[in-house]
């Protein structure tokens, strides 16, 4: 029963035996069910405040989009040659945010880091919903959104196909693959929990969860198939997530615009994606912990681990960012160098410097244990980090249009109109609304995996204290007793 990872865990436990535990190991399993199912019933008031505010914000975005749809892209205050603006920047932001769900659920799953278990479900939901939001931005950005299906390779009588060379078609394919795969992954991982909901629900909810849980009974056959499937899909999702943001990076890297035509863009984008995603996980962690009273499961040690992860990824991002600057600075491409100088000194300079400050300097606060364990501070820092990452995407997209290769572009200053800002704000409303609805309807803490976590940890503890003899006291404490 004790495989190598658990043996390693034993060693770690021995070394840090005094350390605060990720989760209480004597928590009763029925209590886990009860606590999590309670989140489907009566959340704190803050839930409704966030939900209504998000709905209102979303309505703002919808009305902006209706106006833009009716009038034309001109209301966004884009111009020739400044044809891309906040829409594409925010699109990258949302795509990026989706990546840490996969990080938590797939990469850490394969690495047997079991502290992810209480928090991976909502991270995965975040993946799904931020991809949906990103998909909306592709639509919003199009001049003729009513013809968007031209990008889809569907058979037609004229035998016309999309241009498979275009990075936008790669994008569409990659996002479709990622969205559907991560939705499937989320759903498959949730089936055992949906069965728990089914067993405890009444009325129309019962038929709803009965339908969704597909008759899951937890038989050995189901679990064995489940295990293989979950691992396989996780293995698919990791390269997929990397490829999705690499493809988004190629949107820019394959083009000729100075400041975009950089080979280090794909890893840079992936690092930025994980970075903003981890920061978003911290934000949502704190919100969910309060709103649904998940203090027992979303514990401080887990928050601290996430913060450490964020710090590490922030440093990777900073490194890749400096690589980009220095390779441009010392490189031979005068257009790119000039675009870099423009970003640091031109019209966008305040935002560019703010981006560097928020992205590279602010994460150093996470190096301090006292800050990592301070919830209000973590909330503020995680939001600041995401502001920095949003600015980063904007700074990638916009300044290059104002300082392109051709001199005609140099005297164009451009500022996004209220319609653009409204739609960007609306996207945050849309995301929050969907996310909050999800957490209300589905268990946002994985019940069966928390049980596994508790069970395995108690087994490990039993192994450390007495490898041969079963300690009756611990066997009871270990969650086996109801």
């Amino acid at each position, binding site marked *: 029963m004790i495989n190598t990872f658990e043996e390693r865990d034993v060693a770690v436990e021995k070394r840090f035996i005094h350390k605060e535990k990720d989760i209480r190991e004597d928590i009763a399993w029925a209590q886990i069910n009860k606590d999590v199912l309670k989140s489907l019933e009566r959340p704190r008031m803050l839930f409704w405040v966030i939900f209504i505010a998000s709905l209102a914000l979303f309505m703002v975005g919808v009305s902006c989009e209706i106006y833009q749809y009716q*009038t*034309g*892209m*001109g209301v966004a*205050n*884009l*111009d*020739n*040659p*400044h*044809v*891309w603006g906040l829409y594409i920047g925010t699109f990258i932001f949302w795509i990026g945010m989706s990546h840490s769900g996969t990080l938590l659920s797939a990469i850490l799953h394969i690495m047997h880091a079991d502290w992810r278990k209480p928090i991976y479900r909502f991270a995965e939901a975040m993946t799904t919903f931020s991809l949906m939001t990103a998909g909306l931005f592709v639509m919003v*950005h*199009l*001049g*003729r*959104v009513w*013809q*968007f299906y*031209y*990008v889809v390779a569907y058979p037609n009588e004229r*035998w*016309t*196909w*999309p*241009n498979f*060379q*275009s*990075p*936008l*078609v790669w994008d*569409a394919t990659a996002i479709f693959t990622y969205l559907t795969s991560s939705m499937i992954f989320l759903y498959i991982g949730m089936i055992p929990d949906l069965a728990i909901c089914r067993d405890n629900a009444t009325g129309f909810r019962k038929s709803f969860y009965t339908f969704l849980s597909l008759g899951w009974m937890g038989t050995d056959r189901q679990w064995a198939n489940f295990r293989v499937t979950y691992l396989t899909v996780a293995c698919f999702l990791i390269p997929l997530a990397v490829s999705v943001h690499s493809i988004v990076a190629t*949107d820019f890297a*394959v*083009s*000729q*615009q100075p400041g975009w035509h950089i080979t280090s863009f794909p890893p840079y984008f992936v690092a930025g994606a994980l970075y903003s995603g981890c920061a978003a996980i911290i934000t949502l962690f704190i919100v969910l912990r309060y709103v649904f009273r998940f203090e027992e499961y979303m514990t401080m040690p887990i928050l601290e681990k996430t913060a450490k992860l964020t710090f590490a990824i922030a440093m990777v991002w900073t490194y890749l960012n400096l690589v980009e600057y220095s390779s441009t600075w010392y490189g031979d491409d005068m257009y790119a160098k000039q675009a870099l100088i423009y970003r640091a000194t031109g019209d966008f300079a305040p935002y560019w410097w703010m981006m560097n400050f928020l992205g590279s300097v602010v994460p150093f606060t996470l190096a301090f244990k006292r800050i990592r364990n301070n919830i209000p501070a973590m909330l503020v820092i995680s939001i600041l980090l995401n502001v920095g990452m949003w600015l980063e995407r904007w700074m990638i997209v916009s300044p290059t*249009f104002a300082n*392109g*290769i*051709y*001199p*005609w*572009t140099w005297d*164009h200053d*451009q500022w996004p109109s209220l319609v653009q800002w409204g739609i960007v704000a609306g996207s945050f409303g849309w995301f929050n609304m969907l996310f909050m609805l999800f957490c209300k309807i589905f268990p946002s803490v994985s019940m069966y995996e928390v049980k596994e976590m508790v069970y395995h940890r108690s087994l490990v503890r039993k192994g450390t204290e007495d490898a041969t003899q079963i300690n009756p006291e611990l066997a009871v404490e270990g969650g086996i007793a109801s």
Partner: protein
Amino acid sequence: MSITNLLNNWSFYRNKRPYRGQYDLNKEYSEYKWAMALDLDICTGCNACTTACYAENNLPVVGKKRFHHGQVMHWIRIERYWDEKMVDFPEQGASFLPMMCQQCEAAPCETVCPVGATSHTNDGLNSQNYHRCIGSRYCSANCPYKVRYFNFWNYPSTAWPAPLPDQLNPDVTVRTKGIMEKCTFCVQRLNEAKSRARTEYRLVRDGEVVPACVQACPTSAITFGNIVDPNSKVAKMWKNQQVDLYKDLQEKDNTVRGYRILEDLRPFPSVMYMERIRDTEA
């Protein structure tokens, strides 16, 4: 769409362009390659070409406010540069450069269009299919010359109040909001001349057809023609200026003044400019 087609023509589908021998007077469907030569020394910056283009191609006049927003639709624009220091009168230092779509042989805009709305025609033009365009604006983002113009507003409903629609060119469509457009080398004229020539079992003669800007230029700064025909005026000019269509970096002596803009990005443009002779030494 069949595997046999794929296997039979594989090497053809793997051809890179432009390659020497791509255009040939004796080969059907490849006897034309439209090209331009533009002498900046003759250009006076009078904007007649721009005006002619507005009239010929139904370009909307956007008004002062939208012009300031940069939403102007001039397919050919006169750029002014003030790079020569003139102490007495700064205006003397102005030089002009008419800029239109360069109809690149390896156009950066074509590869990135998600729906394939822009692609290369047999006669070497960079075509734009308005019906297919969904307005992702990627082509404009990737165009190094920034000569693509996007319909930010629904111009057909505002730009031509009655009775102005009567002056629209019936050979050219008007473009709705949300699509990209650009200089076509007046493809409506070219196609008409080509089909007329075809009915007479001949090729289009040199000078038989010119775009509106060439026609309107009062100083004849722009020369247009079929560069495949070695006897055409434009082919002779390219040859004299030692500019080769198929080369990305030209080898030439410094007595000539022909060049193509941003050649180092390897788009293989079809427009050759001839440098202005500067009188700075005097």
